[in-house]
């Protein structure tokens, strides 16, 4: 039984988190993100839960009853209660180029997960998560023959994946899982030119709109050869994504006053590259774990209508991270009932810069796991600091700050009686 002081402290922490979450939801802003998100379908996202995010996004060998990312469908086997999990993320980036600096921000839901364990180690799960995100805006003053104008471009959207997963803990050594994935989404990019002399000049707007749909599958497994080691791996084959592209060209004054001058549409089939990876997680007694993960995605095979997109490369991501476990003793101080995580990762961006140089991406992460009432729910939070690109090599660099919050609820009345 908790004492009053601890209860008050727990309530205070939860109140602060609820307040922060409230503002994140109330003022959800899909505003400018990375300028690199203008490429392809946008920036590829791993979108792990906050627990994995605190360990540099390691997901393949994670085995936790309250925190699952679903990227490896076999990791659902560790879930003991019916779970509902919501991910929120907020990201800021500070961009530096030789021309100057800029900053942007992004806050949004980043996923939803529902897992339902059944009999004999079997279970089902459904998950919604983003695969890419496009969110940027750039405004630039220009001049032509003495006429001044402002040129701006803004991109938004991305593609998401809804997955239905089945998993099976065959025995205590081996778990397998598979997901059927439906991919959908929309990207929009508009370019505007607004002349300062609006009395004699007409502005322009070009709107590129693309609706995507496709399907695919993912398979994964987790192997526990010994109690102190978890090995995990997953594989998603190449996805065929059908895209309906629409291009509209406007005379533009403002959003209420614009006239379509031309319109065309086309259909594309895009090959979204296969992704695979493996990971190993060592359990260091009852206090901590540490692991390493390798994933690879052949973006150099990224193609539109069977034409490979130039300037792309195979990305190899390596991450390492660990966790100091929360104490299971209900009478332990609250801070000792929290889990603490840390991680580091590196991967190149999937596209080269305009000079053909690779764009490196580093992340350092820390995270917390906060147990909630009755021990069946949990809040995980992670903070990540990243760097993408290099001013000297790529002529630009982005400093990235990310906050991820995952709320997992697993109430008793969801729990199967025979478990």
């Amino acid at each position, binding site marked *: 039984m908790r004492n009053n002081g601890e209860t008050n402290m727990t309530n205070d922490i939860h109140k602060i988190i609820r307040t922060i979450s409230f503002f994140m939801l109330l003022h959800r802003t899909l505003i400018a993100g990375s300028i690199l998100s203008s490429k392809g379908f946008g920036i590829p996202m791993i979108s792990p839960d906050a627990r994995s995010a605190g360990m540099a996004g390691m997901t393949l060998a994670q085995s936790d009853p309250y925190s699952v990312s679903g990227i490896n469908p076999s990791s659902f086997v560790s879930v003991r209660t019916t779970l509902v999990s919501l991910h929120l993320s907020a990201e800021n980036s500070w961009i530096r180029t030789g021309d100057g600096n800029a900053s942007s921000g992004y806050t949004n839901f980043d996923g939803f997960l529902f897992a339902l364990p059944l009999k004999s180690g079997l279970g089902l799960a459904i998950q919604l998560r983003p695969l890419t995100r496009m969110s940027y805006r750039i405004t630039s003053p220009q001049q032509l023959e003495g006429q001044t*104008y402002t040129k701006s471009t803004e991109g938004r959207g991305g593609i998401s994946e809804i997955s239905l997963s089945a998993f099976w803990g065959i025995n205590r050594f081996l778990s397998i899982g598979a997901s059927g994935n439906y991919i959908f989404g929309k990207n929009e990019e508009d370019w505007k030119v607004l002349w300062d002399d609006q009395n004699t000049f007409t502005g322009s707007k070009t709107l590129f709109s693309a609706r995507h749909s496709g399907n695919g599958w993912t398979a994964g497994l987790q192997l526990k050869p010994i109690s102190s080691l978890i090995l995990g791996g997953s594989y998603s084959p190449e996805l065929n994504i059908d895209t309906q592209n629409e291009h509209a060209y406007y005379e533009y004054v403002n959003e209420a006053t614009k006239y379509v001058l031309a319109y065309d549409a086309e259909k594309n089939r895009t090959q979204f590259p296969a992704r695979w990876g493996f990971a190993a997680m060592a359990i260091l007694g009852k206090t901590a774990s540490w692991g390493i993960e390798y994933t690879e995605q052949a973006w150099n095979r990224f193609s539109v209508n069977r034409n490979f997109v130039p300037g792309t490369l195979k990305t190899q991501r390596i991450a390492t991270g660990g966790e100091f476990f929360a104490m299971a003793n209900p009478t332990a101080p609250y801070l000792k009932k929290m889990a603490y995580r840390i991680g580091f990762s590196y991967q190149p961006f999937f596209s080269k810069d305009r000079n053909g140089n690779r764009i490196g991406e580093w992340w350092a992460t820390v995270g917390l796991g906060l147990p909630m009432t009755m021990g069946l729910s949990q809040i995980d939070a992670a903070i990540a600091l990243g760097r993408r690109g290099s001013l000297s090599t790529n002529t630009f660099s982005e400093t990235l700050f990310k906050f991820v919050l995952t709320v997992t609820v697993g109430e008793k009345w969801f729990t199967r009686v025979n478990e």
Partner: protein
Amino acid sequence: MKLSILKAVLVCLAPFLFYQCSEKKNSVVGLDVLQRENIGSERHAVFQAAANDTFFQSTVSTGEGLYLFFGKYATVEAKALIRFDTLTTSGSVDSLVLTFKKVKTYHQTAGTVTIVVSALQKDWNEQTMTWNAFDAGFIGNTITTKTIASTDTLVEMTLPKQWAPLLVRSTSQTPSYGILLTTDGRDGLVQTNSIEYGQYMELKMYVNNSTKSVYPVQDVFISASSQRPDPDRLVVADGTALRSVLRFNVGEIPKTAVIGRAYLKLHVDESLAYPSIQTQYTVLGFWLKDSLFTQGTISLDSTKYAEASLDNKMVVLNVTSFVQSWTSGFAKNEGILLGGKYETTDLAGLSFYSSRADSLNRPSLDVFYTLPPSPAY
């Protein structure tokens, strides 16, 4: 203590989240970071007129103008036709006086003007009367002449009284055809008010020792220009209805381009300018619907025009919508027709340098346009 630290850390996150809710921040990052083709695709181009630009004489009705013109100025010649109302009083006419206000006299060289009043002997209508419809058969005998100075503002001309039955109608007589006002053919153009102006020309008659006034019921001026086609000039003129046609090949502008601004720039040869009742000569540019003008028929869209006045020896017409329609494929580029705004009410004109004139003075189409970028792959 530890709780306080934890609270402090979490509270520190709040400003970050508020910051997220702030307005979008405009980036100063160059657009070239996007690595897209056609970035910086705003273009400026100057097109020269095609070499087949020319001018021609059209036909317009000038019966609704506020003024009447007659006489000669430079290459322009005008005549005024006036028909008077019915005189219902019977009796013998003792005298007959024609009175009108002279608004202005135009001269190339200062001097007097000799006005000639003639009888008309064929029927006419102010709505349909044109220079081309007027022939020698209209002109009857000369009734009177009078020489006036450029300073005269009121003109009174005594007419022989025997002309009275022919100049005014009565219910029992055959219709009168009215009078024709011209000059003796020397330099000098007279401007006077028409019926539409409201300050009427007057025909005073003394009948049975009382004065009776009769006013015009129809009036019109007809005019023509003896301006010969000059390959180096384009002419537009009110009254004489001289119009010009010119074309620009803008085919190099892609269909998806948005025209920011298109100016048709015309340089004026002031030595060939006609007088004008307007403070500034105003030109209209019409959108030609087809290329039939070579067959003598002009088809234009009177609802789509650009308008500009002479300013600093230039006329600059904003033809953005024309060029946008041509490049977007909404309309075929058949060229632009230039005409005077007061074509039916004024007697004035301008000459522009044509495509064969000195290269600095040729008509040009100055276009700013925007090309769309290539879409992201």
